């Protein structure tokens, strides 16, 4: 069990990096997912088709394939995803003193993939708003935009929180994949590094890494459970 103490800074560093990736990816996925959701319920058929297509493609494709695309397909196109070099975010990419594009690739893959699920979570929220609400709004003459803004979205938001939370938990777990696609120093890559390359005993490392993920996922899950129960009562 010594490795847990000796290498505590490595574990902590891995946890911190995973947290950063998850935070950035969550923001990206929420924004993109909201856009896709709007496309999916918009009155213009081609936009709706784009939204639906997006969701069907990314929901039915393994994240692994998306990751491979990002990490090996983008370089083949000569792209280093430089458009993601936003000042604050960029400092995160410069780990180990060198700038490698893998962090950006991993982020792109996570965002693209998770956005499809975010869209579905938001849409399930919209669907949970009783039809009479929207009908009443229309009958007093609100337009599509007003209807969404003043009547539907404020209510659907409540119904979306729990599914959205589940999606984010799933995303945190999915982020474990980035360690296998070139990101150096996150929790999952730390596991591989410590056991395979540096020869530490396997079980303590596995325990340490597991705790790292459970710290993020279990409390969030419990919180969602409580929210869900409270909402069930309120209904």
């Amino acid at each position, binding site marked *: 069990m010594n490795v847990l103490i000796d290498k505590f800074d490595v574990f902590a560093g891995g946890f911190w990096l995973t947290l950063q990736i998850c935070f950035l990816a969550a923001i990206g996925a929420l924004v993109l997912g909201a856009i896709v959701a709007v496309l999916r319920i918009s009155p213009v058929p081609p936009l709706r088709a784009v939204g639906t297509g997006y969701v069907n493609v990314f929901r039915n494709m393994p994240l692994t394939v998306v990751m491979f695309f990002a990490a090996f397909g983008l*370089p083949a196109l000569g792209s*280093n995803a430089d458009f993601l070099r936003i000042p604050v975010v960029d400092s995160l990419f410069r780990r*180990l*003193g*060198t*700038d*490698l*594009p*893998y962090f950006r690739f991993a982020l792109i893959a996570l965002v693209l993939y998770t956005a499809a699920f975010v869209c579905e979570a938001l849409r399930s929220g919209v669907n949970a708003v009783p039809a009479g609400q929207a009908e009443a709004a229309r009958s007093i003459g609100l337009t599509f935009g007003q209807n969404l803004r003043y009547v539907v979205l404020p209510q659907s938001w409540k119904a979306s929180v729990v599914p959205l939370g589940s999606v984010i938990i799933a995303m945190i777990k999915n982020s474990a994949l980035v360690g296998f696609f*070139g990101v*150096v120093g996150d929790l999952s*890559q730390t596991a*591989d*590094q410590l056991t*395979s*390359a*540096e020869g530490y005993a396997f079980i303590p490392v596995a325990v340490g890494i597991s705790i790292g993920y459970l710290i993020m996922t279990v409390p969030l899950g419990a919180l969602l459970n409580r929210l869900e129960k409270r909402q069930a009562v309120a209904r």
Partner: protein
Amino acid sequence: MEKLNKAQKIKIGTKFDQPGFGQKGLSGKPEGFDVEVAKILVKELGIPEDKIEYVETPSKVREDAIVNGNVDLVAATYTINDKRKERIAFAGPYYEAGQNIMVKKDDTAITGPDSFKDGTKKVCSVTGSTPAENIKKYVKDVGTQLVLFDTYDKCRDALKGGQVDAVTTDNVILLGYIAKDEASYKLAGDNFTKEPYGIGVKKDDTAFRTFINDTLEKAIQDGRWKKAWDDTAGKFGAKLGDAPTINRY
């Protein structure tokens, strides 16, 4: 060994992604120098070639695969060293690779490991690998000059992107990269270490080890060894060099 003879089948650990040595491509069978050497051994054992089962053994699982009995032997660009001898035993060597340096095609400043002594050039290698340890003797400041990743692909990408000036590891691995993209990379100078590649077997299986050593010696003498090379890695322009002396420790 008798068990293998009786069972008439064998599991061989090799790499599936090392051009020229062990690469699995379209045919579904790995191809390369390691594989050819293994085939020579298998033939001598009296086992038909189609009874070979190939198991992918990336660098980090090679010892485990032998110790756990997942494979009967490993031929996977496997450098013989004392640390590994603690867990497994080596027959051979059947090839002597050497550490080298890969730079961009237009780079003339780096000519060998000594070029890192002035403390300006950055070099990349893989964490915990022998090449990383070796190059430390040449660099002036490890902290700023040595960049370590977990795979050589990342080193190559860093070289491509200009974050490092050179990548160092066994020449055969570098030659694989160069063969893929000759317009971009080249080797800087000659090998500066010796990396003997051996066949990994179980630590206590002395009979099998002696048999492999005998077979390798025979194959080197009667030209099967050279033919195996010419058919595979020789095509990438790597030099075979003199036949290594089998080391029966």
